[in-house]
């Protein structure tokens, strides 16, 4: 697998054909081909101007949380270590190692913290993120 395969962002973000689907899909933004993401290596992406951190799991499920570290407010979360707690996927802040559940945004090490999550779906092996 090569993860640097060039892809055409403009083509993959082409507007949907009909008004109905446009309404439903308006906020789903195609981000990149699934294969561009290395499993368990988080990456930052820009979605409607939001910086999000994408994580591809071994099951090919993709999860997304904010790239912004809730504690330091620096945009670094995609550079944290992906892991699991009791089988539930997590992401650790690279700065001070707070651990967040990827699916819920709950912080497992500091109850006062929470990270924003974004819905993700994979269509035709393209990763799409819902951002409002």
């Amino acid at each position, binding site marked *: 697998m*090569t*993860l*640097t395969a060039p892809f055409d*962002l403009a083509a993959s973000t082409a507007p949907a054909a009909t008004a109905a689907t446009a309404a439903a899909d308006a906020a789903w933004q195609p*981000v*990149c081909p699934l294969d*561009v*993401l*290395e*499993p*368990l*290596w988080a*990456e*930052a*992406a*820009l979605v*409607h*101007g*939001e*910086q999000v951190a*994408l994580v591809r*799991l*071994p*099951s090919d499920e993709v999860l997304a949380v904010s790239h*912004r570290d809730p504690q*330091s*407010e*620096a*945009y*670094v979360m995609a*550079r*944290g*270590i*992906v*892991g*699991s*707690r*009791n*089988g539930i*996927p*997590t992401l*650790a802040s*690279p*700065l001070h*190692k707070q*651990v967040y559940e990827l699916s819920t945004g709950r912080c497992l090490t500091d109850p006062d913290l929470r990270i924003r999550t974004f819905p993700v779906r994979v269509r035709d092996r393209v990763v799409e993120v819902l951002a409002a």
Partner: protein
Amino acid sequence: MSADERPGGQRIAVVGGGPAAHRLVEALLARREEVRISLFTEEPWAPYDRVALSRRFTDPQDALPLGLLPAEDARLELHTGCRVTGIDPAARTLTAVDGAGDGSTHAWDELVLATGSDAARPDIPGAQDMVVYRTIDDVDRLRDHVAELTATLGRTPRAAVIGGGLLGLEAAGGLRVLGADVTVVHSRPWVMNAQLDEFGGRTLNRLLDGQGYALRLGERPTALEQRPEGRLLRFGSGADLEVDLVVAATGITPRDELGAGILEPGPRGGFAIDDSCATSVPHVWAIGEVASHRGECMGLVAPANTMAEVVADRLCGGTGTFPGFDTAAKLKLSGLDVASFGDGFARSPGALEVVYADPTGGVYQKLVVSEDARTLLGGIFVGDASPYPSLRPLLGRELPGEAGAFLSAAGGGSPVDLDLPDDAQICSCRDVSAGALRRAVCEGCPDLGALKACTGVGTQCGSCLPAAQKVMEQQMAELGMEVSTALCEHFALSRSEMFEAVRSTRLTTFSQIISRFGTPADPRVNLGCDLCKPVVASVLATLHGEYILGADRGGLQDTNDRALANMQKDGTYSVVPRIPAGEITPAKLAVIAEVAQEYGLYTKITGAQRIDLFGARLEQLPAIWARLVAAGFESGQAYGKALRNVKSCVGSTWCRFGVQDSVAMAITLEERFRGLRSPHKMKFGVSGCARECAEARGKDVGVIATPEGWNLYVGGNGGATPAHAQLLAKDLDDETLLRYIDRYVVYYIRTAERLQRTARWMEELPGGIDHVHDVVVKDSLGIAADLEQVVAEHQLTYRDEWAATLEDPERLRRFRGFVNAPEVEGPGPDGPDRGRPVVAGPRIPLRGEL
């Protein structure tokens, strides 16, 4: 007379500031609500741990604390720097003179004399020019003296220690630590003759000789002469000895001048005491070295502490008695394991001696047992005293097995597992029994540190710690307590176990390792975490030396390794090119300047003789490094748990004082170990002479030049808890030095725990520096070749991580800012109000730019 304005209670005056006085005060404060204690010590500080005096050779800052006497306790008045000049038992007063020369009189109800003793100097001409080894001041003077001699003579100073007893050998060891060559002069044919029989003593002679101490045995010096060309220690027969410094350690003289004509003296000086430690005069007590019990004064701490407890008990209305001297002794000298206890000379009627002797291996062990071979009466250990801590508590008791089974020959050198009875004394200094330790464990002491704090075990001489640890572990096992060393929920292994597991199975990927050792062993649900993944990454990097951001490795790396740069608080990175030994050409400096200017980077000289460039964004790193690599720079691994740098002074090439080329050695070391991953960062230092400008003794590996070669120090540390490195070997040639460092570093990498630096690692390693010495210098585990091989292979596979990254476009994807907009830098496309800049905050300006 000075008015005592403190609250009521009996007035107890204590004269002396050694461990005996300290123990007495501690015990009295613990047991009596109402008491007024006045302690007089002529030294300028509160009582300290004289037993541990040798520690101050290695660490000049070590104040040898004894456990604090509560400074603000109204019951205690501490008169430091205050010499007692007279006592008057009839009037119950004493007179004292303070540092300013002002006299005062103090009233007491009970008087305890703990004046200790003086070091005796031999009665020969020139004795006044000898120095002694008794106090913190003495050690500090010795250190200054040796440093001064080294500087003025321009060579290794030659020291002689007169007296080869416990104290003399400790002084000799200390002088070696300070960098002197040492001759031990002893009037008997073997050293430590008070503790060791002939065979044991001669074994120790050979061990000392093997460690480079010169010995003059069976001879007494007749004079110390000052000559224009230097000092000369004269002997009646045989060659005279050229020396620069002489330490007298020929015994002690009790300081009993205060009682002259008042108290009944002992036959060999001191104050005669009975079993209650009372002197011949009512209300006057004597404890410690100055107390003569049944005609003998003894310079050991355990009996002094016992006497202190007896007097404290008596002053509280008890009936405690002094049971006689416990003569157990252990030599505290690096690399020399010597202990004796009880009736080591087998003087008891009918006593039997069970002996194991290996003269070539330098081991002699003897147990003395009763006629029926069942009761343990004493023992002598030289070269390997590992059975001592377990056996000592059994003194006077029935052995749980045949005597020979407790010697190393039978047990393979490992201490025998013994079920000690509750009343067996583990710590003789602090009188802590096995039962007390077990109770403390039951009450919740989970580790040795807590046990020390709670019971005081091992806080004085420390020789009982292995036994204490064993008792603790047995008790924990009995309670079903488990000391978890697991890295995290994903593995039951500690880091050192992980290293061995990966090494022996030759696994190369995280998912293989999870499948084999994970909890659970399923890589689909066990994804590891930020604790175990970097550990596995480090172990794989050490063992296989492959590119650390390779396809199955990248996600394991910790924050900084992930970007091959150091993440700063705003998410930008700092860049540190390697500048071996701080040596750099003007051309290379210019390249650094250009890069910094072009990318607007803040520059700062680091503490490690390098230049740090701050404020680079992730996606800028490849371009910055392309410039640096082209100019001949390579990664400094400032981001890695690896060797950071080798600090050096300018060395003999330029310096008037340098005796070796420290810069060349530092570069050799830096190039040898660069990139090798370790449990924590490592820092080395190389100094070109004893002035130590590179501060090598604050480093994990410190090398200090001597006129003959290099001294190797290990286990030094800056950081939150600084530690001084300890001498591992002396006067090494280049090749031996490198081999020892190879062994040391790889042994550390293999056996240390996560984020454990070398100082802490050696502290926790059973046997400490002695064990490290055995492994590194004597190859006691037979793994030296394996350890060296790791470094040899590392040198073959080493590749600069940044050069390797730049040459493969696939690798550059790890440095893209956004997966769907690799080219975007700075604020996001929707403007600064929504997408905050990737680099948060403005560039931090330089001072003067403001």
